[in-house]
């Protein structure tokens, strides 16, 4: 029984990480239908900038703000230099551009930072909570709280503000949104900036658990993308449920079945769910208007 509890806590920890990364995909997808594969690099920037700023003597909260600001800046530059000039290109082309951008950012990070892996200290210590014979690190709760706050903030933003509604409108029909006076270009630009901020926030919160290095984004983005697909692309609640499910599936199969096959078990589960529900658990069905 304590073993099973430990597997669940581990799943919760890993799942919370995936959920927070998955959330970053939602905004850009909502605004432009583009899956931004450079999302993992925003997460990397969050962790790396925070580490190097704190190492240089900057207090953690200011370092975190710096990290978020630099990811926002990178998001805007990415939009200005790579996405905006390709206006009118198909969604697939734009996705390929983001893959190129992710490789580029990784290469630059390798030179600007270094090739070592780093950790920032946990926000409230490393002493684990003991519950029913199993242990949970306080940092996991920070990640879960960060996830919950981000979801709530995203929901308020998208449903309760004019700009948020403009994003939703742009995603529903770009031409119609333009006709009613939405500046769709700045909507997409802001969505890149926001995604940068969410990604960096994720990077800051998870680095005490996952460690960080210039290439940490690749796998996190892949897992986060899988989680977002599982939950239904574009739905913040779906991203969280997808992330937690994926983390649970991986860690439970590592503990109960075999650590060799845990990734395989998790991905087979995703395939099965998508087979039955092609739009994910919370995805809205796409209606083609003719």
């Amino acid at each position: 029984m304590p073993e099973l509890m430990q597997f669940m806590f581990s799943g919760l920890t890993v799942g919370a990480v995936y959920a927070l990364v998955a959330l970053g995909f939602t905004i850009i997808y909502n605004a432009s239908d583009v899956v931004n594969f450079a999302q993992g690099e925003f997460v990397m920037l969050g962790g790396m900038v925070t580490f190097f700023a704190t190492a240089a003597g900057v207090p953690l909260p200011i370092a975190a703000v710096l990290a978020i600001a630099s990811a926002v800046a990178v998001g805007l530059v990415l939009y200005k230099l790579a996405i905006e000039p390709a206006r009118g290109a198909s969604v697939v082309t734009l996705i390929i551009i983001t893959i190129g951008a992710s490789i580029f950012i990784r290469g630059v990070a390798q030179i600007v930072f270094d090739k070592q892996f780093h950790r920032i200290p946990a926000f409230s210590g490393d002493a684990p909570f003991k519950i029913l014979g199993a242990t949970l690190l306080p940092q996991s709760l920070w990640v879960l709280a960060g996830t919950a706050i981000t979801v709530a903030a995203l929901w308020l933003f998208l449903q309760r503000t004019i700009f948020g509604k403009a994003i939703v409108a742009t995603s529903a029909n770009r031409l119609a949104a333009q006709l009613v006076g939405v500046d769709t270009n700045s909507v997409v630009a802001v969505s890149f900036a926001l995604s940068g901020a969410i990604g960096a926030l994720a990077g800051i919160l998870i680095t005490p658990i996952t460690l960080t290095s210039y290439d940490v984004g690749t796998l996190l983005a892949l897992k986060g993308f899988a989680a977002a697909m599982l939950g239904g692309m574009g739905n913040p609640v779906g991203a969280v449920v997808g992330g937690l499910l994926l983390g649970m599936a991986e860690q439970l199969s590592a503990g109960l079945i075999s650590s060799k096959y845990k990734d395989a078990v998790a991905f087979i589960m995703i395939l099965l769910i998508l087979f039955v529900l092609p739009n994910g658990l919370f995805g809205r069905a796409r209606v083609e208007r003719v």
Partner: protein
Amino acid sequence: MTFMRAFTASALALLLVSGATSAAVAQDKIKIGAVLAVTGPASFLGDPEAKTLKMLADDINKKGGVLGKQIEIVIYDSGGDAAKAKQFATRLVEDDKVIAQVGGSTTGDTMAMIPVFEDAKLPFISLGGAVAVIEPIKKFVFKTPHTDKMACEKIFEDMKKRGLTKIGMISGQDAFGKSMRDECKKVIGTYGIEVLADETYGPRDTDMTPQLTNVKAKVGIQAVLNAGFGQGPSIVTRNYKQLGFTVPLYQSHGVASKGYVDAAGDAADGVRLPAAALLIAEKLPDSDPQKAVVVGYTKAFTEYAKQPVSTFGGHAYDGLNLLVEAIKRAGSTDGTKVRDEIEKTKGFIGTGGVVNMSPTDHMGLDLSAFRMLEIKKGDWVALQ
């Protein structure tokens, strides 16, 4: 426009002239090849190796070179791609006319280049880790790094001495972790140690508590061995403390770096691992035969490259020194004569240990090359 054209033409001419002169100078140089993974996933190996070779070659040339000639290191970057490494090896032999190679950052790169150097009958001192490089013995191939097998033996020796005979293993699924796990399982029988739990994790996993929980649940576990490299072992160490293990944790030589200790934090306290003398250069007793070499290399490299030393750069340092000494003894750069002299190397003190080569041993290191260390308060302490 005319100005631009004239400018380009003269720039081209200048390039041609300077190219021609450097070719003329190169005629009286001894060329040594080095195909290294300077970029790519194995750049943590190739980068310090390339810097070390350049530094050491400059130093040798300043002191008058070898056999009255200057040496030149021809470096190609394989990016960790074995197919590219093989192409560059052919280029080294056929176009650059090198007299030997000190290179091959990874075992993969090395294995791809061995046939080229065996055919050309030129000495090849590899920097690849696995035992496959020198077993079976190939006439022209040598290596300087320790093998996984030696690390396993050193760890098991320590466990046996402490009466720890029932252990759990948790290994990374990357090449390093897999290879070390296999080598350890081959030699473990001779030490009378039993593996009760055998778990693995992906090199990029972020939480290993399920695997460690299963290890902990096995009755009678007396120690745990983590064969891994990179960030995985840091997370294993932190999870190990989180779960409140009371038995000792052994790590491999793969984590013998400051990065591991920093990333694992307090959790690394009490962890034991085998490592080369280079990492504890300043802490070695003055009577240690390796002290002068490792302190000298550490000082020179940190000044030259402005980065901490790693054992990988040390392997390149040993490789080039071994080769240069053999050339001096042979009094010639003839491939076969130099090879014979490398094989006769006895009592060579390098950063990796004391090297005694023989026709049946093309590495020449024994277990004394490794020191058992324990981490105390974020620093290494030598055991015994």
